[in-house]
């Protein structure tokens, strides 16, 4: 292995440590925000926002998505699109007309 390559890994490792610190801090922030009792809409939005940042950090740096081949991005774009369709499925099928009516 060339020295150049080893230096590359050292740079990676420094990034991993930084990402770890960021994830730990954001975990504390998530819990701290909960104790502020902001109300349902604000706390759901904020908690999901922080979780998305944390998830992106893991995906980009630990999973190396920041520099990946095109095919992996293609697979993931398709997956994310279907994932959101899945999440919207209850809304798209107008569940409110059928569920919780009896209650």
């Amino acid at each position, binding site marked *: 292995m060339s020295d150049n390559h080893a230096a590359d890994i050292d740079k990676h490792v420094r990034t991993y440590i930084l990402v770890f610190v960021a994830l730990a801090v954001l*975990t504390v922030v998530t*819990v701290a925000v909960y104790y502020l009792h902001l109300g349902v809409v604000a*706390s759901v939005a904020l908690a999901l926002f*922080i979780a998305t940042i*944390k998830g992106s950090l893991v995906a980009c740096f630990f999973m190396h998505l920041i520099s990946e081949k095109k095919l992996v991005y293609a697979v993931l774009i398709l*997956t*994310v699109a279907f994932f959101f369709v*899945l999440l919207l499925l209850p809304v798209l099928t107008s569940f409110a007309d059928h569920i919780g009516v009896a209650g």
Partner: protein
Amino acid sequence: MEIPYVVEARPDTGLNNGKLGIWLFLASEVMLFGALFATYIMLRVGGSTWPAGAEILDVPKATLNTMVLITSSVTMVMAWASLMRRNLGQFRLFMSATVLLGFAFMVIKYFEYTHKFHHDLFPSTSTFLAIYFTMTGLHGLHVFGGMCINAYFLGKAPGTLLTTAGLAAVYLALLGPLRWAAAEYPGFLAGLCWLLIVALPIGILITAWLLWTKNNSMEIWRTNPQLLTNRVEHAGLFWHFVDLVWIFLFPVFYLL
């Protein structure tokens, strides 16, 4: 027989086959957990009431578990970086730490689950608990699976030892609440029997298989170190995905 494209990239995909394979698998995993997240949304929006998770679940324990899993993701990626530097000793250290942190996560989860059972909180108690146990249970299963794969890369003796210890811990973890439940509810005695009849032989078979089969991790290290490095990277992608799922499960169930 030489298997092609395990180290070098395929010209048409630009990836080695293992990398593409694990990403396709993770795509299917996204849909698996996605279906359950969609179920959660439907149950929550469709229900007339929804409990505050923090009043039922243990926020400090879950916060600790979040930290444990995040740390294990760092040790996992450091294990890969150690192999990139061709430093086997350091790899063993970080990989063992990853497996042990996974173990710590499961132990904390065990105390959480048992605490719920002792307070008569079962999956059948409420819709909230049903989806909570389903999703965290499936996630825990993924942690356990990842631990087995990671332990395998440590070589035959440590791999077999760690997996067997993990299996034994799972049985002990199941035995406690099941024995208690059998005393409280006679119907649960059947569950206890099922554990002994079905699960125990499966565990013994897994250990026997690990002892009998060839674990070629160290051999690969000697003959083709980049192949082991790639395998560890792919196992890492799975492990980080499991961490990523927990990052969302934690606020969704405990804090919202």
